[in-house]
């Protein structure tokens, strides 16, 4: 007992030192969330992507409307953020008042009691209009009817294709293609000048396995069955992975193991690939004529399917309030402000309508200016995000809520290791069957921990 306590203290001490140091260097001091008086300083820990930087540049409006509340941004990498927040919550230090949390972790942290239940604050505020949040996103952020976070922006996965190349080859694309149709088109379009399709091959649970899990699911497979029995070497899982690997080998981009979102985006914008199955947010970048050679030439359709009706994934970056926050009321106020309809108007009028965070609210897609600015991809994004089902994305019921991930702490480790094995299969160093047989053992070890 004593040892355990002491180790905890040492660990907590180190973690706190690290947080304090990173907090100071990141935001230039002022990490102390002053509870004294009525002036409140909120500390917001966030991932460092562009939409969050927009939020920081607009925080002045919130501070002006809410005198007495100041907001401090601490930006960090995703991995650092996770370590900082878990250490903060575990030690009860209460350094952070608002944190950005991915859809994968919200249900886990919510169930652990690390995040404040926002349901009462959201439902009691008619102006916030919680019913406007896209239903699948809301489902993915809730555990037992309690909503633990509010979505800042969300995305699904879609198939993007180069209309010019399709027309030149005399091919057409339906709005709901099947994987078999896509594979056939990819083989026709695979020429020395451009590859047929770009698919992620970089090992990682969020890289290779984001699209691959959706493929597996539409082929009837799943990571686990309803009793947490691993299904990685099941025939359906194997068939899905084999299909993906074969498609990469016959019509995919060269050097797939190097490629994830950014790499495929580059190849698409340079006109080196005919199709791409990836995050819907890519469309807004492909339509930007300053960086993309294919702006205006792209078509966007639903994620390809086989045995299920929909196969898009679901991801959102969210704002949540740690249970340890000492300024919870002000923190909730800020989280609501940053995900409100007014905030979207504010972004649109000050920064430009294409910068409005997508995929969180239904009403975003009825703003006339946004509809005009994002005409190429806004309708398909809304359509797909409303169509996906995070409760049961595959053929069979699953004991977790989420599409391209399993909401257990071990999943990122399992996903990563199996992705490395599958990457070996893509390179031809091993077969898919051998890789998945090893993956089954890894996945089962994690599944066993959920049973008890």
């Amino acid at each position, binding site marked *: 007992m004593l*040892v*355990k306590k002491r*180790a*905890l203290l*040492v*660990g907590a001490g*180190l973690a706190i030192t690290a947080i304090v140091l990173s907090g100071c260097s990141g935001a230039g001091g002022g990490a102390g969330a002053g509870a004294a008086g009525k002036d409140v300083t909120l500390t917001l820990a966030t991932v460092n992507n562009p939409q969050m930087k927009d939020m920081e540049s607009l925080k002045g409006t919130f501070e002006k409307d809410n005198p007495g509340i100041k907001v401090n941004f601490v930006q960090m990498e995703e*991995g650092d953020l*996770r*370590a900082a927040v*878990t*250490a903060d*919550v*575990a030690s009860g230090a209460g350094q952070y008042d608002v944190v950005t949390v991915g859809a994968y972790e919200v249900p*886990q942290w919510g169930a652990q009691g690390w995040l404040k239940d926002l349901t009462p604050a959201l439902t009691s505020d008619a102006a916030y209009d919680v019913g406007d949040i896209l239903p699948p996103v809301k489902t993915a952020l809730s555990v037992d009817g309690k909503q633990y976070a509010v979505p800042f922006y969300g995305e699904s996965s879609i198939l993007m294709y180069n209309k010019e190349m399709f027309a030149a080859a005399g091919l057409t694309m339906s709005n709901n293609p099947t994987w078999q149709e896509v594979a056939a088109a990819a083989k026709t379009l695979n020429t020395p000048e451009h590859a047929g399709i770009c698919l992620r*091959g*970089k*090992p*990682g649970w969020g*890289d290779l396995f984001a699209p691959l899990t959706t493929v597996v699911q539409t082929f009837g497979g799943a990571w686990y069955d309803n009793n947490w029995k691993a299904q990685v070497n099941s025939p359906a899982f194997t068939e899905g992975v084999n299909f993906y690997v074969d498609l990469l080998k016959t019509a995919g*981009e*060269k*050097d*797939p*193991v*190097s490629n994830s979102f950014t790499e495929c985006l580059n*190849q698409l914008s*340079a006109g*080196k690939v005919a199709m791409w199955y990836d995050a819907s947010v890519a469309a807004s970048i492909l339509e930007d004529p300053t960086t993309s050679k294919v702006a205006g030439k792209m078509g966007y359709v639903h994620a390809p399917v086989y045995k299920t009706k929909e196969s898009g994934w679901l991801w959102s970056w969210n704002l949540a309030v740690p249970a340890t926050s000492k300024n919870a009321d002000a923190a909730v106020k800020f989280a609501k402000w940053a995900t409100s309809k007014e905030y979207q108007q504010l972004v649109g009028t000050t920064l430009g309508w294409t910068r409005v965070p997508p995929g969180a609210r239904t009403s975003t897609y009825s703003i006339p200016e946004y509809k005009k600015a994002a005409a190429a991809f806004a309708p398909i994004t809304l359509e797909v995000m409303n169509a996906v089902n995070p409760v049961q994305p595959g053929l069979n019921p699953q004991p977790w809520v989420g599409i391209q991930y399993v909401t257990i*702490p*071990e999943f*990122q*480790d399992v996903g*990563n290791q199996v*992705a*490395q094995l599958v*990457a*070996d299969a*893509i*390179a*031809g*160093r091993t077969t898919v069957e051998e890789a998945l047989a*090893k993956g089954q053992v890894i996945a089962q070890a994690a599944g066993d921990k959920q049973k008890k």
Partner: protein
Amino acid sequence: MTTASFAPDQERTPVPPAEPEGTATRLALKKRGRQARALVMPALIFSIVLTQVPFLVTIAFSMLQWNQLRPSEIKFNWFENYSVVFTGPDFLPSLMSTVIITGSSVVLSLLLGLFFAVLLDRKFLGRGLARTLMITPFLVMPAAAALLWKWSMLDVNVGMVNWALNLLGLPAVAWNTDLPVVTIVILLTWQYTPFMMLILLAGLQSQSREVLEAASVDGAGPWRTFQWMTLPHLRQYIEISTLLGTIMMLQAFDPIAIMTKGTGGTKTLSYLLYERAFIGLDVGQAAAFGVVTVIITIAVASIALRTLFKVFINGGER
């Protein structure tokens, strides 16, 4: 230690005479010893705090069951993490990858470093500039170097290496997919060749010209001079550069994290450790891997290198 012999013989403070002449001298000596120790203390304490305490903490962590996402279940579990290290499927393949990647990178960068050092060890116009340019790869930050190689050198569509291969009529190589180990070895070699070169160049420049002149007067050709005069002279420099290079390359992480992500035999111990700590979020297991890695590094540095370098020693020189 092999390393100690590298330090040139410094002038040491004369050792006090062994036979004490009286109590007064003995007391004075004792006092001087105490003073000396007191002066060393702050530095000693400082270095112990900075180097040994973190290591002890790591050892303590390695005996805990501690997953960052289950902070309520931290407990002491003796050597369970070590049993996972030695019985699990990760350790041996990872050790093999480490040996292969570090070993080939060290050998290659040593050979190339020697080659460039010999080239630079003569007077020519623009030698300073050439030397600075040669050192540059070592000054580039590892992560930046990995990105540079990933995007502008080895990229399958627009990379310079594949462009050169195409010029020669060879097909483009999908480096990360098909040759991950070679990719990492190329990058590490590129990065550490300048380091080896610098040390060996220092060695070459400390070689006395008269000896070389005498050798050539005696009729030794350039190759014989190099083999029998220069190489033995460089032995200590080769040892130290191999030792330091091995220690640094054992820790190589950035190219693996950025380019191959541990697939295809590139999951070295340092990358495995990162995976256990930041993806597995298992602090205890990561600490156990860390402790084992440190022990292996020490063993390699002190035992293997010493036997290895018997090769260079000419009959009875040491």
